[in-house]
């Protein structure tokens, strides 16, 4: 289902209404952001079922925290932070991590910000890189995903994952090296 593009003014209007307790407005925000929140959750916890739980909890936390949203960051960035915190809370509770077959993952482009050239390159590379990411350990994958996919700073990553900045840098270095090795393996396997 394609969501129609929402102008910043409309989005701001929905946010203001949701801050005042308007459930319908919040429902619209959920519908608009559910795919990206779920995607981030899958990348963090790997298990799609757990990712669905994480996404649901993240939105419920966001609803409770709506009155505190001041708009200093973009709404989606704020949701991402809540999702990371929620995923890490779930991670502490759950020890089970299952790998779903990747061909069961339906991928669709984020239409609102799509640059056709970049999207074409990304779509062709996405399955391999996504598959390689899923082979990293959870704590290393989280750092690589947040830094190299979502562009977080080392300090933001350290704060949200409750680790030191040095640990974040070390994990990033290890993760990138491992990812590079895994991608090489896929290339060798394909040729």
């Amino acid at each position, binding site marked *: 289902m394609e969501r129609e593009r929402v102008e910043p003014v409309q989005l701001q209007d929905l946010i203001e209404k949701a801050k*005042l307790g308007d459930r319908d407005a919040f*429902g619209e925000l959920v519908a608009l952001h559910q795919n990206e929140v779920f995607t981030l959750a899958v990348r963090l916890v790997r298990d799609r079922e757990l990712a669905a739980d994480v996404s649901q909890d993240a939105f419920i936390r966001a609803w409770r925290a709506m009155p505190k949203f001041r708009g200093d960051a973009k709404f989606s960035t704020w949701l991402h932070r809540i999702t990371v915190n929620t995923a890490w809370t779930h991670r502490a509770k759950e020890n089970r991590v299952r790998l779903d077959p990747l061909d069961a993952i339906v991928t*669709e482009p984020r239409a609102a910000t799509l640059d056709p050239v970049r999207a074409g*390159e990304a779509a062709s*590379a996405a399955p391999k*890189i996504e598959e390689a990411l899923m082979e990293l350990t959870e704590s290393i994958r989280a750092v690589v995903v947040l830094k190299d996919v979502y562009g977080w700073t080392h300090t933001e990553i350290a704060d949200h994952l409750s680790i030191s900045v040095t640990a974040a840098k070390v994990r990033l270095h290890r993760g990138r090296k491992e990812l590079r090795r895994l*991608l090489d393996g896929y290339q060798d396997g394909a040729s």
Partner: protein
Amino acid sequence: MSIMCRAVHIALPTVGESGLTAPLAGHVDSCVPCRAEAIRYRTMYRELDGLALEAQRAPAGLASGVLESLGPVAVVSEPARRDNRVPIAAVAVVATAAAGTAVLLRLYRQRAA
């Protein structure tokens, strides 16, 4: 593998190709294996960046599940919250003072006895 090649292999996963120091960047230009390595990392970083544009479809029912689970939001207007701070602080001060007085009185009585 030369020392410069090793340094490049350490630097690429840390700072990427654009973050290489001038001597290392110069080495990459003249060393074929290091150049190939730099290109592999460049491709990997571009692919990771491209993932930001990809979104997986959320399971059907996620949004409705969220809406069913929403409790009432505790919307407190900013002025009201500020107004509440004074009485709460006053109650806390009075309660602390009362508890302190009670302890002192008890000690005083024990000594007197």
